[in-house]
């Protein structure tokens, strides 16, 4: 472990998020145990008011988590110069076994917090708050994930040692560097391209169907396809999309597109991918809440909206991803 401003910022941020969610969960447990919508006791009124606090805490935690993901990637990028053999953020994250798991945990926390907010949003529309207990159980799951994330991130930074010149021996020949894979294993570009665009077509088609009719096979399929599309899009970015952005046949780094040299194109790219996938997945996840009487009008309206935004966002994502393939002179084939 070494003192680096980025590492200090991330650790501080994680501690804050952890405290917020920890506090929210403590309130959540109380709400799970004592909640009684039919009661007009002062205790129930107080619990009801505490739900506002919990949702505020989770909303802020989500906001901080988004910042934290980018800060984490940027810090990995920044410290790659300290690690022999690391060429970019990928190299830094591979420097020890906790780097990538910590990033995945962050993304998982992001999705969980976002889905909590989505469920909360729906629940707050029904007068009897039917999802309340389920919602607070989800919050406990988020807490577990968050603790995992915190530990992984802490271990990652703890185990990183910068390779610096020591007074006894000047050179290490940077041989250690060979141990850090500076690139991610990637799909061969051409099959990946074909698969990527066909999956996009299928996903948007299902999305359109779910938009027209918020019925079971469509919403479930939309969930499945957007999830697949999300995973595969990440693979596609590594496999071929990044190559076109960098105009280099071998640079597969999914993080460099967040840099100034590439006009920060990675930000809109990932933002639309994450938002579009999330909404698509949620459209199917909430399907089972339709059974609840007070929800049977709220859910389809939300599904319709989410399906529409999902298609729009994923289309924008695909357009951004395809732009360099069409517009820039670089050709893989």
């Amino acid at each position, binding site marked *: 472990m070494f003192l680096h401003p980025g590492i200090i910022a991330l650790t501080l941020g994680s501690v804050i998020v952890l405290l917020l969610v920890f506090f929210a969960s403590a309130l959540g447990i109380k709400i799970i145990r004592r909640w009684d919508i039919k009661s*007009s006791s002062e205790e129930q*009124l107080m619990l*009801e008011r505490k739900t506002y606090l919990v949702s505020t805490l989770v909303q802020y935690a989500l906001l901080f988590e988004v910042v934290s993901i980018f800060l984490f990637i940027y810090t990995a990028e920044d410290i790659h110069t300290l690690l022999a053999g690391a060429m970019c953020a990928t190299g830094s994250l591979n420097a020890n076994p906790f780097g990538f798991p910590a990033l995945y945990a962050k993304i998982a926390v992001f999705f969980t917090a976002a889905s909590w907010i989505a469920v909360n949003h729906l629940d707050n529309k029904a*007068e009897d708050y039917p999802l309340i207990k389920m919602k607070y159980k989800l919050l406990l799951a988020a807490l577990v994930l968050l603790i995992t994330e915190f530990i992984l991130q802490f271990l990652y930074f703890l185990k990183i040692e910068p390779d610096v010149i020591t007074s006894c021996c000047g050179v290490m020949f940077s041989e250690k560097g060979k141990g850090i894979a500076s690139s991610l294993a990637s799909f061969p570009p051409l099959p990946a391209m074909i698969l990527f665009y066909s999956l996009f077509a299928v996903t948007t088609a299902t999305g359109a169907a779910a938009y027209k009719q918020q019925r079971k096979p469509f919403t479930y399929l939309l969930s499945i396809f957007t999830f697949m599309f999300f995973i595969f899009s990440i693979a596609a970015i590594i496999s071929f999309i990044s190559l076109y952005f960098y105009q280099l046949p071998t640079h597969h780094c999914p993080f460099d597109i967040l840099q100034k040299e590439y006009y920060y194109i990675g930000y809109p790219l990932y933002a639309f991918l994450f938002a579009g996938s999330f909404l698509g997945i949620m459209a199917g996840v909430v399907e089972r809440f339709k059974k609840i009487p007070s929800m049977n009008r709220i859910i389809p309206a939300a599904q319709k909206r989410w399906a529409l935004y999902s298609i729009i966002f994923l289309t924008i994502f695909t357009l951004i991803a395809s732009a360099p393939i069409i517009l820039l002179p670089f050709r893989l084939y």
Partner: protein
Amino acid sequence: MIKTENITKDFNKGMRDEVTAVKDVSIEINKGDFAVLKGPSGSGKTTLLSLIGCMSRPTSGRVLVENRDVSRLPERFMTKVRRNTFGFIFQQFHLIKGLTVSDNVMLPLYPTDITPSELRKRAEDILNTLGMSDRKKFQVQKLSGGEQQRTAIARALINNPAIILADEPTAHLDTHLSEEFLSIMRNLQQQGKTIVIATHDPLVYEKEYVNLYIEMRDGMVRGAGRKH
């Protein structure tokens, strides 16, 4: 329009300083009524008014607003009902100092999805009808008592409420201003709004157009009468 069924409101329930402010009250107010809640201070008028106006929930019993039971609604929805149905006028006006007349009038609708230009237009229209258009840019603390009161009325009307609730509105006004206030209320009633005033001022409850009296004492209804 508004109906209460055996409502009771306790404060600090289960504690040593438990108080029952309203006990077992059943009343009914119809559309277009000019109702007066009458009684000495501490008789529970204000608490009853806040229960009717969806500002607080009864400990037991039901409150029905336009045939909808609101007594068990979560705060989020209570507020919606309150914002859509009621206009409030408070004893001390409760205007926000430092804001202009028109800003004060617009306050209730800020958290709704109304466009700023439409909101401004609405506020201007209401201030016009109350003869306050030349005062709209004034800060409220610089207004006279009567003007402050008209500002408070304008604020109560901005959401175009069906029911206007007023709590001791004439307590701090002289006779002339009290009469002016009542005539504005009478006007609103004639336009089809329901008026409910809590007061112990004879000037109010002796008005001939008051058609419903509810007399309270010690949190209970002592008598109610309807004039046709």
